[in-house]
């Protein structure tokens, strides 16, 4: 096997174990599965007799766009991808990689792929769990007709695609931030504010964000709230003129590729400064 490929696989293997099974990563599982808790709670303890499947589909869309994409996956990717480089710096273990006969670009690519596998597995898996929690209380006949004769299956695939693209988009940006900045929280906070303010931006600037393209992939649009009550976070819900899903997918993949290559190039100048972090 090609040397780079073997090195890549070795890095992925080591990092996957660290991401999936570390005690430090438990909160990521909690964040991903948090929406499933009230969904299963509602199924088991709630009164579900008078509910409409369409209403639940709308609620699921709201939770997915408002909480899952913007908060759960965002902070999950902050935790997973910033940990890949900066976390090793804090653990004082990055020098083991840097002393090895491995190109920095291969190291960054390996770490990105391991983070991607972990994040996609966790967050797409959690989407499936939430889907079950949300719709499992309906009768099997109704559910089968929604899934296979109605839009259910295509919606589920779109949600999975959006979750995977969110991991790719946010992951690449946070990996770059982890390579570039000593305190990657500053760019993370700036991205959070930028993505949050997306609803206020003019149409042109809206497109310079990840959430705009992710919303274009989502199958159900959420209407903007009529009564904001002056709450700043109500701005997170906004109507957009969505781009075609294919364009959104290609744009996000291109962005991720560009940012990852940039991070790889930047990693050539990476120096270890084990401070008092």
């Amino acid at each position, binding site marked *: 096997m090609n040397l780079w490929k073997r090195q890549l696989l070795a890095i992925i293997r080591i990092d996957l174990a660290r991401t999936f099974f570390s005690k430090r990563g438990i909160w990521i599982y909690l*964040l991903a599965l*948090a929406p499933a808790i*009230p969904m299963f709670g*509602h199924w088991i303890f709630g009164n579900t007799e008078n509910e409409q499947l369409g209403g639940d589909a709308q609620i699921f869309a709201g*939770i997915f766009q408002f*909480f899952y994409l913007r908060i759960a996956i965002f902070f999950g990717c902050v935790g997973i991808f910033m940990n890949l480089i900066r976390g090793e710096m*804090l653990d004082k273990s990055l020098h083991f990689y840097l002393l090895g006969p491995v190109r920095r670009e291969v190291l960054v690519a390996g770490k990105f792929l391991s983070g991607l596998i972990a994040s996609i597995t966790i967050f797409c898996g959690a989407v499936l769990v939430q889907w079950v929690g949300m719709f499992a209380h309906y009768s099997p006949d109704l559910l089968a007709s929604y899934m296979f004769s109605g839009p259910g299956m295509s919606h589920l695939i779109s949600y999975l695609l959006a979750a995977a693209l969110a991991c790719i988009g946010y992951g690449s940006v946070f990996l770059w931030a982890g390579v570039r900045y000593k305190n990657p929280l500053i760019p993370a*906070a700036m991205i959070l504010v930028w993505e949050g303010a997306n609803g206020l931006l003019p149409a042109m600037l809206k497109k310079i964000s990840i959430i705009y393209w992710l919303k274009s992939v989502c199958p159900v649009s959420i209407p903007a709230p009529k009564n904001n009550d002056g709450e*700043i976070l109500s701005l997170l819900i906004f109507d957009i003129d969505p781009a075609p899903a294919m364009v959104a997918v290609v744009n996000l993949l291109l962005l991720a590729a560009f940012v990852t290559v940039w991070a790889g190039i930047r990693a050539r100048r990476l120096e270890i400064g084990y401070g008092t972090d």
Partner: protein
Amino acid sequence: MAVYKRTYRGYSGPLTSPTWRFTVLQRYAFKAVFKSRLLLIGYVACFFAPLALICALYLNQNATLLAMVGQKTGFMKIDAALFLNFLSVQGVLAGLVTAFVGPSLVAPDLTNGALSVYLARPFSRSEYILGKGMVLGTMIGSITLLPGLLAFAVQSSLVGWTWFVDNLYLGVGITLSCLVLIAVLMLMGLAMSAFVRWKIVAGALILASFAAGKGFAAVINEVMRTKIGYFLDVQHLLSTVSGALLHHPVTEGTSPWAAALALVVFCGFLLMLINRKLRVCEVAG
């Protein structure tokens, strides 16, 4: 002098009064905080909104300038809603300041085992917490309480004594709301810093606890068709209490008393966390 003659001599200089000893920690912690140029820029940027508000208050009463743009005095309504919105914006900035400053206060002392060095001196644990907390408290107060009261004072001086007397509740409300905000953010900053120990992760956790708390509360409310989710939303609890104090109640969600009680429980939990984590000795079993 030969090295062997350099023996221990006790400190014979002036001692800080025991009451104000916590300010020593605060002074040194401040120096460390403002070493970061980026943080300093961010902190200064927190004063843009107050400056804009004070300018707007001045313009609102300046007949000459307003006549030039075809407006009359009092075109902007100065009421509880305005101050509440101002406090909301400054509150968000205060949350960001907490996320960046809070983790660097306690975490390095715990990671490097320096807590015992502090507590070996005539310095109690509560003084240590107070000293570190006051750094956050002062910074948050300077971007929320101080500008809020300054804006109130400016408006009072421009409009007159009657406005001041009629709207005194606004001044009291601003003070109490900011004190509640300071207490919550201060405890949250210290608790996360002590709990996580990694500066970056602790900062991310503070940011996430605001955003995720709000999101998770909305998820619970939507799915369970209930309103108990609001108890997990610290921002909602704070704005409910502030709204009640400024006589501008929030229409949806919990009652002000329930929100206040939830905040007390939350602060108690954070204090418990700090108390649990800030221990010098750990006895191995």
